[in-house]
């Protein structure tokens, strides 16, 4: 089993850097696309968002924050994020720590600026990029710890989502997905119409989501071959969610953690081989 897949930590982190870089380019490009919303009168205008930081408003840092979080400086920061992420995508295996730190810093500033516009993919991105930063600037034992940190966060992300869905009655009956695909903001007309024709389809999809999220991630501890089953199913899952619900960044953000999960599963192979 161990011979079937060989992946060094360097390879795994390189692939993660590339996928996380693509996600950060997509994220930055979309923020630039809606940059009008950052200006006065936009839904993400700093003039309004600053009121959700009462401690900052009372502090002496507010003047600096007013400069950093409003255009044109904030827009320039997003451009810097895109450029730095482009460097990561072009040279993923020689990722420099300062380039990674730049992308992380801008993403954290964006998280701080507007919690209302944050999506789950943003947090997974910071998790993966931070581990990549450790890899770029630390010795091997730490690299392993950083890899396992990402793998465990990935496991937690799916399992927590799966368990909470399992405990939610509307997910068990299929009503949750029927409701989601019905909305124009998150849903898809075709999926809604098919769900109306075949309600059992929605119930099955809800249960498939619950089973995948709460059971499949544990395959990580079954070794690399079983982990590949989990990751392949995960990719299909995110593609489906992307098509139906329009979560473009989710696909890249979670896929960026996959190479590290696979590398950790190879550690598990070794563990079982030794035993």
């Amino acid at each position: 089993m161990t011979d079937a897949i060989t992946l060094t930590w360097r390879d795994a982190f390189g692939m993660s850097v590339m996928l996380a870089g693509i996600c950060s380019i997509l994220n930055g490009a979309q923020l630039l696309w809606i940059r009008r919303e950052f200006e006065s009168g936009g839904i993400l205008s700093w003039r309004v968002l600053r009121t959700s930081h009462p401690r900052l408003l009372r502090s002496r840092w507010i003047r600096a924050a007013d400069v950093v979080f409003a255009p044109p400086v904030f827009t320039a920061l997003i451009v810097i994020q895109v450029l730095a992420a482009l460097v990561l995508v072009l040279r993923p295996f020689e990722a420099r720590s300062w380039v990674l730190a730049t992308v992380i810093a801008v993403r954290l500033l964006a998280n701080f600026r507007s919690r209302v516009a944050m999506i789950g993919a943003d947090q997974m991105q910071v998790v993966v990029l931070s581990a990549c930063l450790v890899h770029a600037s630390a010795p091997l034992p730490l690299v392993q710890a950083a890899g396992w940190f990402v793998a465990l966060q990935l496991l937690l992300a799916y399992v927590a989502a799966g368990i909470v869905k399992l405990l939610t009655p509307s997910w068990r009956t299929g009503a949750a997905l029927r409701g989601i695909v019905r909305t124009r903001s998150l849903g898809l007309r075709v999926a809604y119409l098919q769900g109306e024709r075949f309600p059992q389809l929605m119930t099955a999809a809800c249960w498939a989501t619950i089973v995948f999220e709460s059971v499949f991630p544990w395959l990580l501890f079954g070794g690399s071959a079983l982990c590949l089953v989990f990751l392949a199913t995960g990719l299909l899952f995110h593609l489906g969610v992307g098509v139906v619900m329009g979560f473009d960044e989710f696909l890249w953000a979670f896929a960026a953690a996959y190479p590290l999960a696979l590398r950790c599963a190879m550690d598990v192979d070794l563990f079982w081989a030794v035993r």
Partner: protein
Amino acid sequence: MAVVVEALLALWFICSLANQFCPGRWRWGRRFTAILKRTDPLALVPDYRYFAPAPPAFDLELLYRDRLRDGSVTPWRAFDISSDPRWRLFWNSGKRRYQAAADHCARLIHQATLQIVGQRTAEQMYLSSSYVAVVQYVAGASHSIAGVETQFLIAVSAGFDTRREPAIALVSPFFRL
């Protein structure tokens, strides 16, 4: 140095784990959430409970209309919240705009509900950051050239299910443009 980094990663993971399973009805859970809110302004600790326990089943629609100089009002106009289904697997730039607008609208509906039961005053709602955000957003939209005032309306709709009538959740007073 290595120990410090390992400890930080471990702390990050433990906080992430705790954040998924700290229901608000337990005292320690509420305390943890409150501490996290104060100490994690960068949102480092993730919340992975996507679409549960309250999956969205309705759209929040934001509409506005203008009052013209002669006192008449224009028909309601809605902000577009849908995205092109052909491309959104690769490109969905509107999702953050919608999410921010929907988040503010949901907070406003919540505050209006509190106002009805006497736990909030109208002034508190009008001075809230969500109200100011929506007012700014509506004021920044395209208006009739003869418009002097505008007002917004938040409606809850069943999306593609046209058999259900949308419900009006909140109507703002007119405010000057």
